[in-house]
């Protein structure tokens, strides 16, 4: 019985690291655009499938494919923002309109991916990639998973540095807090939003690539991963920059430990139960005040 817990913890941490990227990037965009953007899940898949295309057709090695995937995901998110959400926001569209528009975009992206790549699941690593597993604290972790964790930590550090320590980060925070005032004092909010969307989109594209390295990617799960990121960012606390990170690891751990006694398919259920419990407690707390 005790031998499986460390494994679950490791799985939880790996899952959490992927959720972190999704949660952080989602939160960055949410702070600036103020609506639940489902297209972000589509952008996640753009990153993954671009990398797939390149490696499958032997056009580039793993690292280059990953990088190109990130960049193109960033471009994808950027284009979507400029062609769809920005014009809508300028028209004064409500957050529900934006949400539904993002749903439409997500449907488009998912459909295109299935048409080009079909519904099957695939993994970025080819079968003959050598996989080494290490034993740690009684559980097993593969070199791929170690790589995922490393990339994740680097990404978190870079993002934190960028958004907490630089002037750019402060400007972005100002726009998120009060866009009207920011405009009044001369900040080009559209430009900064565009840049943040690009960065966030490439990060979520990176998440997609990491998912494809780990468990594999298929078109139907992009949205599901986005929801995990959204849940993580809510329960971790959207107001704190690193809140989503905490939420993501918490979610990853609780999902994987939670299926100790249940089968693996209960993970999604656990995630949403956690969300609903959290929102309920938060509501009860505000009612008491």
């Amino acid at each position, binding site marked *: 019985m005790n031998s499986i817990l460390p494994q679950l913890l490791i799985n939880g941490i790996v899952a959490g690291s992927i959720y972190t990227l999704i949660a952080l990037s989602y939160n960055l965009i949410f702070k600036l655009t103020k609506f639940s953007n489902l297209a972000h899940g589509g952008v996640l898949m753009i990153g993954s499938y671009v990398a797939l295309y390149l490696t499958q057709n032997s056009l580039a090695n793993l690292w280059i494919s990953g990088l190109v995937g990130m960049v193109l995901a960033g471009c994808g998110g950027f284009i979507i923002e400029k062609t769809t959400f920005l014009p809508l926001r300028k028209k004064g569209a409500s957050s529900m309109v934006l949400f539904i528009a993002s749903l439409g975009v997500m449907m488009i992206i998912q459909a295109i991916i299935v048409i080009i790549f079909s519904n099957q699941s695939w993994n970025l690593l080819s079968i003959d990639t050598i996989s080494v597993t290490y034993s740690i604290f009684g559980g097993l972790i593969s070199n791929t998973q170690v790589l995922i964790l490393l990339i994740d930590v680097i990404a978190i550090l870079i993002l934190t540095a960028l958004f907490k320590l630089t002037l750019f980060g402060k400007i972005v925070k100002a726009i998120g807090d009060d866009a009207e005032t920011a405009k009044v004092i001369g900040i080009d909010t559209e430009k900064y939003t565009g840049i943040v969307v690009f960065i966030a989109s490439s990060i979520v594209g990176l998440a997609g690539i990491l998912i494809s390295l780990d468990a594999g990617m298929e078109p139907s799960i992009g949205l599901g991963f986005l929801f995990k990121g959204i*849940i993580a960012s809510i329960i971790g606390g959207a107001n704190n920059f690193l809140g989503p990170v905490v939420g993501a690891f918490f979610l990853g751990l609780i999902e994987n430990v939670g299926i100790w006694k249940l089968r693996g398919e209960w993970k999604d259920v656990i995630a949403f139960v956690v969300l609903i419990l959290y929102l309920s407690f938060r509501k009860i707390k505000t009612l008491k005040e």
Partner: protein
Amino acid sequence: MEYLIHLAILLSIYAILGISLNLLLGYTGLISLTHASFFGMGAYVTALLLVHTKTSFLLSVLLGVILVMPISTFLGMISDQFNKNDYMLVSLGLNVIIFGLFNNLSNLTNGALGISGIPRPVLFNIDFSSNSNYLLLALVLLLLIYLFSHYIVRTSFGRVLKTIREDENVSKSFGFNTRYYKLVIFVITASMAAVSGSLYASYFSYIDPSSFSVTTSMLILSITIIGGLASLPGTLIGTLFFILFPELLRFVGIPSEEVFQLRQLMFGLIIVLLMMHRPQGFMGKYKL
């Protein structure tokens, strides 16, 4: 001809779903991504009862509704505690949870393997194994639900729903217990979705959880929005488009595997364009 009957039956099933969501979103302004779950509950109740017992079809429909009512009451009550943004996520979450239950409570639902061999009903000495008879059954149910919805919309009750959509606080200040109104319409529409589920189960004779997922919820939402919010005829048109579009694609020679993806692509595109230029949908009376 047989094929047309098949399409007409599909139309009836999905139109009922579309109408239920239109009452909720188009008239009351509540977005719900959980209705596919109620659709599924109705389907599973009918499936289990028809396969394992000698219950009649209509009774199974009734029991499906009876099952859905308390569950949707409970869900409606907790959903009401959240603001709009959180509410969308909560309703989505509930869909995922119930989908998970369909998938994992294998002792009851047979999990991902689904339930097969669901028989067609035999009512009033008519055997509904023939599709043309089944179409009659489906159309009757659609008609009843359509007329019922049409009635609701014309009443003072329907008017209050619209004010909830427009400005709930002002509506409350006029003395309307808006929480109660929202709950009632939520339960009514959930029950409609359950009826549609029963129709679905008996028609296809096989169901599995994949028909009741988040994707289904989103498709129903698309039908409602494209057809037109707060327009019951609009929902019929939207459903018609939903059913016929793949046929059109097949007609021009697109292979069957791609047809549904192209439909999704088309629908996604239409939704984006509608949001940008005509947020009320084609025949809608309400702009988001």
